[in-house]
């Protein structure tokens, strides 16, 4: 077991390193001149005083060979040091660290909502005796996945904040301000989960072992919740990593719509100002979150599925 964990952790580290490397070369080697970006000219070298450019290149170490820069950046990243922000000069790492708690709170609440809501909806779309009710409920997840996050946010704002005045529209103050953003953020991944789970549940209900359970005289609830749901949950469980990643991505839009302070807002501001070190830090962080989530999922997997005694390989997770 310990060897297995070590191997999975090593794989995770590789993914992390590769994500960082790709992000580094995309951000530093593509057309725009980083020094010109740092000078705030939008990448247009011609409009900036050459002396200032040289000065900036020296300050950010951009005058050195690319590989040296890369080695330096990688070394820094290991210590969570991503260099100074082009925009404010503050360390990019600490900018991210400051913004993180609010976003963790938001995505944590949204994750709980998505998992609970998605599971409940999936079960509810299979369970009822009424065919009509099942059809109505199973039409909901496809609608949920088709809704743009910003659209959900705006509609909720419009009706619940501006019209009904129930909840605050913007800001980070108090739990009330968390409700709308969390719901907004939770709807698309929740619907996605509901879709996967209800499809899997329907498939499971056609399995021969479900017929065996019915032949024992088991009632509806025992068959569907006792036998089918646990088996159906297995494929849904593997998408948890993607779900968490989706929530981080969704936070970008949600925090913009609700003007909340957080990682998403920081990302948007940094992209707007082409603040490369901050963007790199955000990308590295999101990869870290994904790697940790999938590692946890992998390690918990055997508890859910006794057939997997040593947790699935990389391909089984990706498939």
């Amino acid at each position, binding site marked *: 077991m310990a060897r297995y964990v070590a191997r999975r952790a090593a794989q995770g580290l*590789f*993914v*992390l390193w*590769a*994500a960082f490397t*790709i*992000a580094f070369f*995309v*951000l530093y080697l*593509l*057309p*725009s001149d980083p020094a010109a970006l740092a000078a705030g000219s*939008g*990448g247009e070298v011609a409009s900036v005083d050459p002396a200032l450019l040289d000065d900036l290149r020296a300050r950010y170490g951009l005058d050195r060979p690319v590989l040296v820069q890369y080695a330096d950046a990688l070394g820094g990243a290991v210590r969570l040091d991503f260099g100074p922000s082009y925009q404010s000069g503050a360390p990019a790492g600490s900018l991210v660290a400051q913004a993180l708690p609010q976003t963790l709170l938001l995505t944590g609440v949204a994750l709980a909502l998505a998992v609970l809501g998605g599971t409940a909806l999936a079960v509810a779309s299979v369970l009822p005796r009424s065919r009509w009710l099942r059809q109505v409920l199973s039409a909901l997840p*496809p*609608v949920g*996945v*088709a*809704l*743009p*996050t*910003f*659209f959900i946010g*705006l*509609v909720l*704002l*419009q009706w619940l904040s*501006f019209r009904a005045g129930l909840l605050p529209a913007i800001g980070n103050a108090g739990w009330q301000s968390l409700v709308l953003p969390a719901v907004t953020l939770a709807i698309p991944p929740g619907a996605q989960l509901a879709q996967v789970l209800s499809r899997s549940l329907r498939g499971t209900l*056609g399995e021969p072992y479900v017929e065996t359970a019915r032949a024992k005289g088991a009632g509806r609830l025992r068959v569907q919740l006792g036998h089918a749901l646990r088996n159906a949950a297995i494929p849904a469980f593997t998408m948890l990593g*993607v779900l968490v*990643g*989706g929530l*981080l*991505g*969704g936070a*970008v*839009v949600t925090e*913009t*719509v609700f003007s909340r302070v957080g990682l998403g807002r920081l*990302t*948007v501001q*940094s*992209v*707007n100002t*082409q603040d*490369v070190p901050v*963007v*790199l830090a*955000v*990308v590295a962080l*999101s*990869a870290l979150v*994904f*790697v940790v989530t999938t590692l946890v999922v992998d390690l918990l997997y055997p508890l859910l599925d006794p057939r997997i005694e040593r947790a699935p390989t*990389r*391909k089984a997770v*990706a*498939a």
Partner: protein
Amino acid sequence: MTATTTRTPDGIEIADREDARSILRHGRARGAGSAGPWAARAGRYLLRRPGLVVAGLVLLLVAAWAAAPAVFASGDPITGVPADRLLPPSAEHLFGTDHLGRDVWTRVVHGASLSLRTTALAVVVGLVVGSALGLLAGFLRGWVDDVVGRAVDVLLAVPSILLSLAIITALGTGPTKIAVAVGVGAVATFARVMRAEVLRTSTSVYVEAARASGARWWSVLGRHVLPNSAGPVLALVALEFGGAVLAVSALSFLGYGTPPPTPEWGSLISGGRDYLATAWWLTTLPGLVIVAVVLSANRVARALETTGEDQ
């Protein structure tokens, strides 16, 4: 001796165990659907799926908007009538008007072209790069598969919108750059599905049978593997089209697309944010258009998926 098939009095052929199983699972046995000419079959198929028909019509309609916007909205999408500012929806202005007195319907119709072109380009980027990688991985296997597998892992590790934002940071803003950014985000999914499909077909018995009868690998690839892998990939194209509409509109909403006043769906909604409290139609109605397009694309994707399963 040739007719091993037997016909029941009901006219349903059951030849063997697999048929009996398929009747229990899917209703009619094989050959059943092949009754009548192609058009009649397609007609019956669609008649039983009104939702799919509506979805197809929605997609055709927005495609028509993109091709010939003036036919559907003759007004000017860029300049408005200041006197008509912020009018609610009416017979004259179906979707109301914005703060400059421009007709929102006209802007939505004229925005279709740019939005859909960006989306289509994104899907093409994802499809071409992703399925090429998946094809190589699934067909060659071995170390190629390992390398592609790792690359897909890495692409999946960063949420696609953050990946797109990183690319935009480097490339700058604009519709083409958005399309590339979104397309790169879709590469991993295409590669995965293509690899799985190619692996499934190239390990199937009929491919081994072709190999055993002496066919060369390129002929096996072209005649068996690719045609039989295409179905699920096609379904994925439809699905990713819906996803790309969402991603493109989100990036334009954040302001990385075309600068105003050019109409584009995401930026249209973003522009309505300032009038959220007073003019609901500015955000809600264009938003519903996006939802309708994505829902339709997803519905078509599901139909393609299930036809694939029947085979």
